[in-house]
């Protein structure tokens, strides 16, 4: 019974947390208060459900409990203020609406737009979304973003206070602002995915789980905005990447680069879903960064069917991406593809062209690519130095071993 109640509470938490926070905070803009009230409601659920049984509508039960708590808190804070009476009235009215329809209106999209608002520090948008929409705790988020838990906790508190005090709205942006604002939401979702993705060895199981959480967030977005091609593109991109998650390691845990992976080990269902999404996105005829990045992944995935990689197609997609974003990271990826069509010398020249970008100084793939190209051209000394630089930037033990083996394979200078 007790485990049933626990499971029901956990399930309700996973499915409803963001919906309940969004709904409770939409009027007051006070995310922290909504989360506190919801935490109390979950505690009450765990205390009463085992004895009284799981209610038939757990979400509505939690909402009622949290709402009561929120009203109590508001009353205690300002008993004499007319402003709070107005707030209470609107809360009661909205509650009546929710009860009448029997379900909680889904306002998670508004919550996500608030989290990714231009007035919120870009680095905090992704953590904020993970906390308020998915209910992840500050310690878990801190581990993923390589930050002390106390610092992350403080920054989350500050960001939520900012939403409330600065008056950041819980509503969908105006049509003319939508593309830019949606981009910020997608960036934040992708940042969560990437933070989980960079640690393929799952040194920390919380990171691995994060990629799944980001996928889940993006699925919510595709439900709420089914006709936005970039949302579909981002989901396709992340599905393609996660299709290869198991193929990145050999039996002994060694790192396998994409070009050496066995396509039979890729997840066919995830690839098929990604392809369907990408097709639907392209039928909407509004191209964008995430659709193009997904197209690159799609071209790699095609090796599963054709047995070869169409590098020329990949280079031309990167050409488009480079025009669209001007990103030096894209330029590095393009150079790597270029090595397959135009040779290592041309690729190295392309890398040199963007070598001054400050973003690349600490970007491991740039140094690994540079090292590989230098090695292919027979420049053993500079290649060794570039491998050393890449190693200094890599945490993952398997990827480190891979780079070390390559570095050592370069013949040491003979005396």
């Amino acid at each position, binding site marked *: 019974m007790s485990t049933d109640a626990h499971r029901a509470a956990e399930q309700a938490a996973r499915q409803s947390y963001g919906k309940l926070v969004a709904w409770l905070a939409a009027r007051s803009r006070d995310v922290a208060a909504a989360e506190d009230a919801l935490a109390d409601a979950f505690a009450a659920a765990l205390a009463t459900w085992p004895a009284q049984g799981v209610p038939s509508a757990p979400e509505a039960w939690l909402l009622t409990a949290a709402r009561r708590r929120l009203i109590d808190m508001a009353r205690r804070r300002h008993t004499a203020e007319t402003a709070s009476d107005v707030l209470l009235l609107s809360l009661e009215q909205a509650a009546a609406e929710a009860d009448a329809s029997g379900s909680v209106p889904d306002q998670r999209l508004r919550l996500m737009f608030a989290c990714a608002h*231009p*007035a919120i520090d870009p680095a905090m948008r992704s953590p904020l979304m993970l906390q308020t929409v998915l209910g992840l705790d500050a310690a878990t988020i801190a581990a993923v973003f390589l930050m002390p838990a106390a610092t992350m906790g403080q920054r989350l508190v500050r960001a939520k206070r900012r939403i409330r*005090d*600065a*008056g*950041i*709205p819980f*509503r969908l*942006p*105006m049509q003319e602002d939508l593309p830019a604002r949606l981009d910020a939401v997608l960036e934040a979702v992708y940042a969560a995915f990437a933070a989980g993705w960079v640690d393929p060895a799952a040194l920390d199981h919380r990171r691995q789980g994060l990629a799944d959480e980001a996928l889940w967030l993006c699925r919510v977005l595709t439900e709420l905005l089914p006709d936005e091609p970039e949302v579909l593109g981002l989901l396709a991109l992340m599905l393609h990447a996660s299709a290869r998650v198991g193929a990145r390691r050999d039996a002994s845990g060694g790192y396998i680069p994409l070009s050496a992976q066995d396509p039979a080990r890729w997840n066919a269902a995830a690839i098929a879903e990604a392809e369907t999404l990408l097709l639907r996105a392209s039928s909407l005829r509004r191209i964008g960064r995430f659709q193009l990045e997904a197209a690159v992944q799609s071209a790699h995935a095609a090796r599963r069917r054709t047995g070869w990689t169409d590098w020329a197609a990949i280079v031309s997609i990167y050409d488009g991406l480079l025009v669209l974003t001007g990103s030096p990271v894209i330029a590095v990826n393009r150079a790597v593809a270029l090595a397959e069509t135009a040779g290592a010398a041309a690729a190295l020249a392309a890398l040199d062209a963007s070598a001054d970008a400050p973003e690349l100084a600490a970007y491991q793939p740039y140094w690994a690519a540079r090292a590989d190209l230098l090695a292919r051209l027979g420049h053993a000394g500079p290649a060794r130095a570039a491998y050393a630089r890449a190693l200094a930037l890599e945490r993952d033990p398997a990827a480190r071993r891979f780079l070390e083996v390559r570095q050592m394979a370069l013949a040491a200078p003979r005396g």
Partner: protein
Amino acid sequence: MEYLLLIYSDEKDMAATPPAELEQMMGAYMAYTQALAGANVLRGGNRLRPISAATTVRTTGGKTQTLDGPFAETREQLGGYYLIDVPDLDAALSWASRCPGAQYGSVEVRPIWAM
């Protein structure tokens, strides 16, 4: 919510602006003020005299110190403000971005902390 739009610009640049351009700027401010009033969001606003007219007062241990000049020397100086009443930050930012001051310097948007 009420927001204060604080208009900052470099006074030295302003002093060096040709009269024709200044006149154009004044026209832009007039139109902007009318737009705010027309949308019924304007609660107040004014220009400020340059920092050469500023005096700063600080009382420590019962003793009042009066200093000739602004509170802080900065590259851009507070030159005026609008007080507006709009539903949320998005609306405030939208008005701020249309303020002529955003073209000549920057506009800081601060929510009023109701007392």
